[in-house]
C-alpha cells in the first residue's frame, strides 16, 4: 500500500519566508503521527502545505495520491475532500444544529442523495459518540463535544488522511483525552492521522510516530512509548 503522505526534501514557506527545510517523511495508512515543536516552529505551516493552503515551492510532495508539484487550482477542493481537517477552534456553524452542520458540509462536497446523507450522519454521530446530540446547537455542547462534531465533519468523505491542528488546544485534559482517543480509534480503522500538538501527556497516552520540529527542520522522529497505552 502506498504512503498517504510522501515528502521528499520539502521546504515550507510562509509568504516568502523559509519556515522549514529539507523535510522528508512518509505517513502510511492507519498511522498516527504527531508533529511537535514550539509555537512558531512551523507545524501549522507544514500542515497547511499538505492541504494546499500554502504553495509547495521546493521539494517533492505526494498527498492522498495528489502530486502537490503538479496540483492545479481546480484540483484543490478534490484534494481536500480526501483529507479531513480538524481545527483548534472547531469552526462549526453556530446558526445550525449538529446534524445540519454535517449535512451542510456534505452538500458543499457534492453529496446529493438525501437518504444516504441521513445514514452517513447517523453513522458519524455514532462513531464520535454524539448519538443523542444531533439536534443540538453548537452552543449547547461542551468544548469536547464540539470538537467531536469537528472530527465527525472531517470524516464525512471517508478521508485517507485527517489533519488536526492543535485539536485539544481549547479543551480541558479530560476532553482532550477523549478527542485523542477518538482520533487513535479512527487511525486503527485505516485512516492516517497527523496531529500538531505540544500536549506530550496525550502523546504518551496514545502513542504514535513523533516528528519534532525545531530550528527550521525535523530534528528527530521517533515512535512514542506504547507501554503506556
Amino acid at each position: 500500500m502506498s504512503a498517504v503522505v510522501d515528502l521528499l526534501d520539502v521546504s515550507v514557506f510562509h509568504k516568502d519566508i523559509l519556515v522549514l527545510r529539507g523535510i522528508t517523511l512518509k505517513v502510511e495508512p492507519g498511522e498516527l503521527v504527531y508533529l511537535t515543536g514550539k509555537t512558531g516552529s512551523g507545524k501549522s505551516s507544514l500542515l497547511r502545505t499538505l492541504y494546499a493552503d500554502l504553495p509547495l515551492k521546493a521539494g517533492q510532495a505526494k498527498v492522498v495520491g495528489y502530486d502537490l508539484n503538479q496540483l492545479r487550482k481546480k484540483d484543490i477542493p478534490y484534494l481536500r475532500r480526501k483529507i479531513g481537517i480538524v481545527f483548534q477552534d472547531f469552526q462549526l456553524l453556530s446558526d445550525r444544529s449538529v446534524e445540519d452542520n454535517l449535512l451542510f458540509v456534505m452538500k458543499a462536497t457534492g453529496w446529493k442523495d438525501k437518504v444516504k446523507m441521513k445514514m452517513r450522519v447517523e453513522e458519524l454521530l455514532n462513531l464520535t459518540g454524539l448519538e443523542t446530540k444531533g439536534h443540538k446547537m453548537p452552543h449547547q455542547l461542551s468544548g469536547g463535544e464540539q470538537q467531536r462534531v469537528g472530527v465527525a465533519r472531517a470524516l464525512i468523505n471517508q478521508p485517507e488522511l485527517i489533519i488536526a491542528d492543535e485539536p485539544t488546544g481549547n479543551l480541558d485534559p479530560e476532553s482532550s483525552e477523549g478527542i485523542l482517543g477518538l482520533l487513535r480509534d479512527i487511525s486503527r480503522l485505516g485512516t492516517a492521522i497527523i496531529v500538531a500538538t505540544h500536549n506530550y501527556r496525550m502523546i504518551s497516552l496514545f502513542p504514535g510516530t513523533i516528528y519534532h520540529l525545531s530550528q527550521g527542520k525535523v530534528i528527530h522522529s521517533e515512535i512514542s512509548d506504547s507501554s503506556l497505552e
Partner: protein
Amino acid sequence: MKSTSQEDKITRRRLRSAYLTTMVSLALVLFVTGLLLLIGLHARKLAFHVKENLGFSLYFSKSAREAEILRFKKSLDTTPWIRATQYISPEDASDLLKQELGEDFTDFLGYNPLQASLQIKLKSEWTHPDSVKKLEAAWKKNPMVIYVDYQRDLISQLNKNVKTISLVLSVLILLMMVVSIGLMNNTIRLAVYSKRFLIRSMLLVGATRGFIRKPFVLQGLFQGFISAVLSMLLLGGLLYTTVRQIPELSRLADNQLLMTTTGALMLLGMLVPATAYWLAVNRYLNMKIDHLYF
C-alpha cells in the same frame, strides 16, 4: 459560548437592517434611473417621429414631363434612405394653394405658376445634416430638379437637441449607477465580511469556489429583484398620478417603451448586487488566512 450566540444575533440584526436600507436605497436609485430612462426613450421616440416626418420638396422644371418625374420617383423609392415619396403635379399644387388661400389665384394671374414637385420623407437615420447634404447634391444632379427645399435649421437643431438630451440623461444614469454600486458595495462587503470564516471553512472542507459563491450571488439576485419591483411600483404610481393630472400625456404612452424600461430596471437591479456579491466573495476566496483577521 452564549455570548458568541448573542453576538451572532446582534450581527444578524444589524445586517438585516443594512440589507433593508440598501434594498430601499437601491429601489429609489432604480426609480430615478427608470424615470430618466423613460424620459430619454420618449425623447428619442419623439425625435424619431419628427425626423421621419421631415418634409423635403424637390421642384422640377416646367419642361420636365410627368412620366420622367414618375420614373425618377420610382428610382428614388428603391433607395434605402427613402421612407415615402409623393408626386404633386402643378394642378394638385394649385388646388392645395387654392384651398389654403381660399381664393383662386390663377384667375388674376391668368396661368398656374406652380411646378411639379416630389414630397420626400427620409428614414430617420438618414436625416443627419451630413447625409442630407449628400442626398441634396445627388438629387440636384438630375437636370429636371431645379430646387430642393427643406428646413435646414430644424434638422441641425433637432439633431443637436437629441444629442444633448441623450448625453445629459446618459451622464445622469451613469451617476445613478455609480451611487447604487457604491451603496450596495458597502453593505455587501460588510455582509460577506461577517461570513469570511464560513467561506474559509467551506474552502477547507473541499467546497468548490462556485458552490461557495452560489448562495451569495442568489441572495444578490433576490435583493435586486425586490428593489426592482419596488422601483417599478413607484414608477407606475408616478406615471398613473401624472397621467391623471395631465390626461394629454396619455397620448405619449407606449407599452413597448414601458416594457423596455421595466426590463432594464430588472436587469440592472439584479445585476448590480449579484456582481457586488460575486466580487466580494472572490476577495475572500483568494484571501490568505492571516488577512482574515484584519
